[in-house]
């Protein structure tokens, strides 16, 4: 029998606000244990949570970007469970009236285009971190992360393959980063994904019993876990056994999932309305102002760059992979740089310099005017491409003054035809061997000669001009 895998995702995203969702403690990652805490986020009796306006804005912006309808009258609920990472013994979340519902995300995979429906998006608080000390057999609780704002984005069971899941997560991450609502760092846990998976005979429309997989810390882990879990379930069914609805934990080292807890007996969350937080009522004016302020997203930019500038698909993809890069590109074009030149510099030198420094595009000092100036000088023939790359390296970290650097180091391209001619003639006279080789048909000898002339002129000549002059002299 052929089997079909059916997958739905629950993605938790930590929002990039300065403060926690219900108190004014910092959300900074790390920090000494329990130093980002107060009576609200440690669950002290009598403490009053107050929702951060930024969390509401970010959640609504995300809902809008994912094509959801925004819930005009929304509220919070308590989800009750006992686990020491949650000091109040309940998590403030949204069950009955989540902030956004019924969205859709279009994805593209090698197998074709698909639409993934978004069931809902809600706001909630993150839990703390537990560390077990095997020596004392005690568990240490660090509540720094407790109360960090999360949005949980729940899809319908619309995925059939791991490729689709990864394509969706990449698109989601790109969108969230463009909106500036999260940095989406999987390794720091600011984007976490639970995978709900079941299998059914191909062609069947009912849903099989599903399991939920947790602890998936990378796209690679997600893809492997999906393959393993689907195989495990199919094997069980084919052996005449049944799949049990449960939560399973992915073990990266063992390349396998194992059962955490059975859903049937553990999960009775006894949700009820959160009395400490008044409801939220959103006006049409508020929604309109957020809609108007939505940035152009990556996909729209790619489409526009292709249409307006005729850039290849690959270039469009590369320069929109990060909002800061796209903004740099648009800045360059606005300052008159030819779009293809701008794209080349970003894909080559800019990405190279960032990766060599282990930096993110948003943290770079380089501004559009600096790079635009460099591109213009190359275009005017006042700087050759190789020298321009050296100048780029020199100004990249501090957004230094391109013209000042060129002046200081005497790097401006020599457009003194007579000098190039004279130097070329001298080099030819001094190297009869290469001249003979060239004339005997060894094209490579010309490269060596160009190199010598460039060295004589300290790299300031235009290599194309040198090449042309040498060919002309050698032909005589």
């Amino acid at each position, binding site marked *: 029998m052929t089997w079909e895998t059916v997958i739905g995702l629950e993605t938790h995203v930590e929002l990039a*606000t*300065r*403060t926690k969702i219900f108190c*004014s*403690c*910092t959300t900074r990652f790390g920090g*000494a*244990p*329990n*130093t*980002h*805490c*107060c*009576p609200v986020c*440690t669950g*002290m009796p009598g403490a009053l949570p*107050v*929702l*951060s*306006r*930024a*969390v*509401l804005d970010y959640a609504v912006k995300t809902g809008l970007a994912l094509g959801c309808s925004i819930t005009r009258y929304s*509220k919070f609920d308590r989800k*009750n*469970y*006992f*686990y*020491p990472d949650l000091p109040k013994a309940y998590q403030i979340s949204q069950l009955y009236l989540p902030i956004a519902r019924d969205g859709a995300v279009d994805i593209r995979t090698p197998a074709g285009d698909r639409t993934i429906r978004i069931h809902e998006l809600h706001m909630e608080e993150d839990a703390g971190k*537990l*560390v*077990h000390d095997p020596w004392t*057999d*005690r*568990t*240490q*609780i*660090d*509540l720094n992360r407790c109360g960090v704002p999360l949005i949980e984005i729940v899809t319908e069971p619309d995925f059939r393959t791991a490729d689709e899941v990864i394509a969706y997560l990449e698109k989601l991450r790109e969108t969230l980063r463009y909106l500036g609502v999260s940095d989406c760092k999987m390794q720091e846990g600011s984007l976490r994904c639970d995978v709900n998976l079941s299998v059914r005979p191909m062609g069947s429309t009912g849903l099989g019993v599903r399991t939920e997989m947790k602890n998936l810390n990378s796209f690679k882990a997600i893809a492997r876990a999906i393959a393993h879990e689907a195989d495990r379930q199919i094997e069980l069914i084919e052996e005449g056994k049944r799949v049990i609805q449960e939560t399973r*934990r992915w073990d990266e080292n063992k390349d396998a999932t194992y059962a*955490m807890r059975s859903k049937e007996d553990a999960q*009775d969350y*006894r949700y009820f*309305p959160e*009395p400490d*937080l*008044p*409801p*939220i*009522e959103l006006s049409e004016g508020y929604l309109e102002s957020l809609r108007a302020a939505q940035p152009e997203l990556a996909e729209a930019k790619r489409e526009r760059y292709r249409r307006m500038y005729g850039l290849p698909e690959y270039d469009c993809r590369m320069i929109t992979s990060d909002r800061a890069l796209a903004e740099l590109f648009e800045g360059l074009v606005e300052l008159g740089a030819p779009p293809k030149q701008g794209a080349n510099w970003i894909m080559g030198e800019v990405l190279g310099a960032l990766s060599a420094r282990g930096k993110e595009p948003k943290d770079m000092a380089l501004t559009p005017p600096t790079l635009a100036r460099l591109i213009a000088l190359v275009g005017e023939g006042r700087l050759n491409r190789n020298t321009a790359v050296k100048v780029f390296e020199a100004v990249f970290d501090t957004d230094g003054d391109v013209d000042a650097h060129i002046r200081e180091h005497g790097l401006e391209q020599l457009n003194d035809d007579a000098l190039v001619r004279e130097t070329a003639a001298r080099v030819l006279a001094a190297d009869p061997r290469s001249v003979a080789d060239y004339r005997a048909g060894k094209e490579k000898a010309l490269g060596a000669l160009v190199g010598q002339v460039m060295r004589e002129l300290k790299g300031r000549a235009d290599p194309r001009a040198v090449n042309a002059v040498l060919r002309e002299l050698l032909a005589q």
Partner: protein
Amino acid sequence: MKITTELVDHICGLSCLELQTEEKQDMTAQLEQIVAYMDVLNELDTTGIEPMSHVFPLKNVLREDEELPSQDRAELLACAPASDGEAFLVPKAVE
């Protein structure tokens, strides 16, 4: 609604409580009484009335995203039964 011993056991499980047999009997009777209050409310005809989650006429109580200093760690840890000076300590809870 009938409160049974099984239901009390279930609630104890969810609340991490261990009760003696006698306490369970007390609890069953008390819960029965508490839930009986709800039956009084259930006598009211609420057809066409919007369910209400809050009794105060408040909405949109929000704060700005401005960081304030957190509480002194020693003071927070002092509120817990056990700590090691950096973290709260509880019996083994990690799987």
